[in-house]
């Protein structure tokens, strides 16, 4: 199925459409925050702190008197960026490894599989602890830690997808005509698994948003004065018993983004292959 036709078909799928539009709205709100937010969040306004929801401050203000809506927009941007780059790391390292493993086989494949198993012993939080101990806390740590976690995931998906098409005649034809395994991996296997990778990317993106929140919440990720949805929750930790909104709003934003991304992923997966959809739900759950 060509990519264009694939997305047309996906768009007729209800959960994809809801997920796509929802994610798009949040992504746009986050992007807009680069140029404009309702209030300037670098300006502290102590006189106006802890304001409730009102027509002036739609979602109220926080402990520094910063507008919560502006904070959420800007925080979502950081969360998106962290999750995006982490997916990029997983794609750019994991996919080549998975493809080469499938096309070369032998010792290379064995090494990639063993490496995968090994990386699974390092949940993002463990890598984040190591990196933070060595370099100190920062948003970049979160990116690297989540990225490391993404590598084996994409390697596995790429290898699995490649193995399912590697027995096709055109691959044998390419081999017979003298194409190298390397060439086959990137010229023939890669183009045929792009939709598979896009599906997995949407899943990892939503997991990345959740992971960023967790890491920043315990102080291993984004640091002030920057802000992220997870950092907002960390800062609310000592205040939320008195001002629940400070914790509830960022939490709901995270949940909404993650649900929309998951719906988008489910829709894509269904379109790709209804049989695969069941299989992959199991993978996504991990």
């Amino acid at each position, binding site marked *: 199925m060509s990519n264009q036709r694939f997305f047309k078909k996906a768009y007729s799928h209800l959960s994809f459409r809801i997920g796509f539009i929802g994610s798009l709205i949040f992504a746009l709100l986050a992007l807009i925050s680069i140029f404009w937010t309702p209030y300037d969040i670098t300006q502290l306004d102590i006189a106006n702190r802890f304001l409730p929801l009102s027509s002036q401050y739609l979602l109220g203000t926080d402990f520094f008197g910063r507008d919560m809506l502006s904070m959420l927009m800007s925080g979502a941007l950081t969360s998106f960026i962290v999750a995006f780059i982490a997916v990029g790391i997983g794609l750019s390292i994991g996919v080549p490894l998975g493809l080469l493993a499938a096309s070369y086989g032998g010792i290379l494949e064995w090494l990639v599989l*063993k490496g995968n*198993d*090994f990386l*699974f*012993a*390092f*949940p*993002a*939080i*463990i890598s984040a*602890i*190591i990196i*933070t*101990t*060595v370099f100190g806390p920062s948003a970049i740590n979160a990116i690297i830690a989540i990225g490391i976690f993404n590598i084996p995931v994409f390697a596995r998906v790429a290898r699995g997808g490649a193995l399912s098409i590697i027995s096709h005649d055109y691959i044998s034809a390419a081999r017979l005509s003298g194409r190298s395994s390397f060439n086959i991996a990137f010229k023939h296997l890669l183009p045929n698994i792009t939709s598979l990778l896009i599906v997995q990317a949407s899943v990892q993106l*939503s997991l990345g948003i*959740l992971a960023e*929140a*967790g890491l920043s*919440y*315990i*102080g291993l990720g984004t640091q002030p004065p920057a802000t992220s949805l997870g950092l907002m*929750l960390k800062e*609310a*930790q000592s205040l*939320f*018993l008195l001002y*629940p909104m400070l*914790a*509830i709003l960022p*939490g709901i934003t*995270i*949940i909404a983004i*993650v*649900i929309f991304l*998951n*719906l988008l992923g489910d829709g894509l997966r269904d379109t790709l292959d209804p049989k695969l959809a*069941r299989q992959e*739900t*199991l993978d996504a*759950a*991990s």
Partner: protein
Amino acid sequence: MVSFFLQRIFGFILTVFIASLVIFLLLDILPGNPARFILGINASEQSVNMLAEQMGLNQPIWQRFISWFLRLLVGDFGISHSQNISVFSLILERLQITLPLAIFAMVIAISIGLPIGIMAANRHGKISDSFLMMLAQTGVAIPNFWFGMLLVLLFSVTLGWLPTGGFTPWNENYLLSLKSLILPSIALALPQASILARVMRTALIDVSHADYIRTAQAKGLTKKQAIWRHGVQNAMLPVLTILGLQFAFLIAGTIIVENVFYLPGLGKLIFTAISERDLIIVRGALIVLVIGVTFIMLIIDLLYALIDPRLRLRGKQ
């Protein structure tokens, strides 16, 4: 079968060894002299050198790694210099919170998630199925620590039923200890239960379409009997895989949720150690985490082989 088991156990040991090496090396490239850090900036060059000598810091790195790893094998994790206690006993003490927390969470997740999954599968395609799956879809998206904060708001602040946080040691009053773990385990269990429900449902639906179920029905069993006698065992395979992965992540997840409830578990130990630059603790605690995660994966692999005869045969060849 035996060779399959041995192979897996060897893989486990290898993973732990390489992980130890990686953790050791990474924490070793840290800038600054640990001996200097312990003694403070006012210590004389001579005493720093002496302590460095004592700590074995002057030996080549591979020698230090080997001796550290060998001591690790017999449970000697070294002495914490910030607290002057054996790191092993420190970790054991903290595990008394972290481990029960992870186990409670797992038990709650299984006892909620699996029935919901089975219920949804039995009502496949009906409105109640969609409703349950919508709940699960939401549950997967909720950060566990945030859910913990909400639980505190509801059950501790508004209703006053349970403590907002902190921990009473087991030997003082185990009922109070249990009480302080209730909310954290529920918080940890929610996303896990949602994932389990989804996996259980998918696995059962898959199984009910399988050829052998149709064959069993053709031989006179009702569909329910056929699924119960032949299907459930097969449906449990994917569920088991997810359970293993989940338990591994639960152990890591406790570190985050402990923070919400001010529980002095493994997470607290690690973060305090990081801020006090007590690398011996960080190193030891990380190794314990990695061993825990890898060990659970090993157990799941072995259980898998016991349940699935196909895998057992493949191990033989």
